[in-house]
């Protein structure tokens, strides 16, 4: 019987990953011919990475960085991820409906909703078998 041990080093890579996302973001916008938008969106990634690094004593930032990585942190992370997924799915559904009502093609939003639903069903099936 074990309780989850804190692992201060566990997610130190997260700020670096967030900052690194600026590079493909910038390249994608550059290829698309919109250098200025690429710089803005890329900068957002870097600002978020800096907040993660300099977040210091904030418990929330520590949770994001995985410094208090125990069972409560895992439970909070799971709940936060669930809430994030619900917000994203509601937003996608709203965009799907608004796009369709405007007479435009809502295919991208529809496919993303389909992906979300099939992922949810698949995850439930696998988790149900494992538990």
């Amino acid at each position, binding site marked *: 019987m074990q*309780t989850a041990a*804190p692992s201060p080093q566990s997610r130190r890579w997260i700020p670096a990953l967030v900052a690194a996302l600026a590079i493909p973001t910038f390249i994608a916008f550059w290829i698309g011919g919109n250098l200025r938008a690429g710089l803005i969106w890329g900068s957002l990634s870097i600002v978020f990475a800096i907040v993660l690094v300099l977040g210091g004593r904030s418990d929330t930032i520590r949770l994001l960085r995985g410094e*208090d990585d*125990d*069972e409560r*942190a895992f439970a909070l992370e799971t709940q936060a991820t669930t809430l994030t997924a619900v917000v994203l799915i509601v937003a996608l559904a709203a965009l799907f409906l608004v796009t369709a009502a405007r007479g435009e093609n809502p295919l991208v939003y529809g496919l993303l909703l389909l992906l979300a639903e099939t992922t949810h069903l698949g995850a439930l099936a696998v988790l149900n078998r494992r538990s």
Partner: protein
Amino acid sequence: MKNDVRELRGERGLSQAELAGALNVSRQTINAIETERYTPSLPLAFALARYFGKSIEEVFHADGSA
């Protein structure tokens, strides 16, 4: 869930950080348990009870009784 963790820790003169270190959890988790904002998993509840040399029922009170 109501519990006696704060009282038991106080009797032993332990800080939240010391108890957290002994149980391999964060200080925030001990604080959340003591203030009843977090109900620990069964393994952690067992670990807490064993640490204090008591049964789970003596440390945690599911029916709300002290």
